[in-house]
């Protein structure tokens, strides 16, 4: 679920398109996409083979809502909506993940929370717990 205040909505189809696109970007940052570097700063993510741009099979269909508080500074009351869904999405996913993994003693998984990272977070927590 994503709910943004973009002011007065002039074209709902375009606004929802931007928010859904932003949600997909947020899911991607939380779960899939990452630039990687070696210790000396050499980038190891150099093409789309190394950087898995999120694909259609992995993006959920967001439920989109609107809060409308008209912007006072212009006659239309419009704000901005570019990639609006992106901001809250990774926090929501990673907090949900931390909550789900709390019984294992995991408090945080760094994004992107790949299966490998989730497993190693559980393993680290187990070793810390003795």
């Amino acid at each position, binding site marked *: 679920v994503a709910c943004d205040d973009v002011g007065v909505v002039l074209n709902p189809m375009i606004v929802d*398109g931007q928010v859904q*696109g*932003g949600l*997909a970007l947020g899911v991607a940052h939380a779960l899939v996409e990452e630039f990687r570097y070696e210790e000396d700063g050499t980038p190891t993510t150099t093409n*789309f083979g190394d950087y898995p741009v999120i*694909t*259609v*099979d992995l*993006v959920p269909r967001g439920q989109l809502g609107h809060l409308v508080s008209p912007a006072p500074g212009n006659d239309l009351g419009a704000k901005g909506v570019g990639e609006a869904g992106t901001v809250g999405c990774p926090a929501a996913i990673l907090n949900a993940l931390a909550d789900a993994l709390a019984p294992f003693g995991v408090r945080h998984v760094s994004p992107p929370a790949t299966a490998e990272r989730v497993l190693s977070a559980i393993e680290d927590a187990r070793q810390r717990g003795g």
Partner: protein
Amino acid sequence: VAAERDAQLPACPVSLTVNGVATTATIEPRLLLVEFLRDVCGLTGTKIGCDTSTCGACTVLVDGRAAKSCTLLAVQVQGCSVLTIEGLARGSELHPVQRAFHEHHALQCGYCTPGMIMATVSLLRDCAEPSETIIRAALKGNVCRCTGYTRIIDAVEAAGRGGGTA
């Protein structure tokens, strides 16, 4: 070794049909199909995204099936029929898949769109009314950074219901 690498390979003739037009050219054998379409035929609707077959922006139809034109040599499609995004509309009348993408706001920046549409045309030839699950499986070779994909899925479903086959 460098001289050997940089030497021009002997040009060779290639004949194929592009959007219904018989096309003959003399090209370097290493020329990619996407470069042939864009630089020799001047059909720049087909995009180059990754050059490694990962993004799908260069998707065209070769003998009716979707193919990534950055990963085919032009000489490999000798004698074949190639369809690009420019060949879909009938005059000013959009192809049903193009119309569905337009009506459902299935594009934002538009860079992935020619490839998405050609992949969709190929899908609808195999499966006239695909489910969302089938659409998601069929289009995962085409990446889109802007839309979050759901409106693309909606457009493909609509094109399927409307008989969006070429």
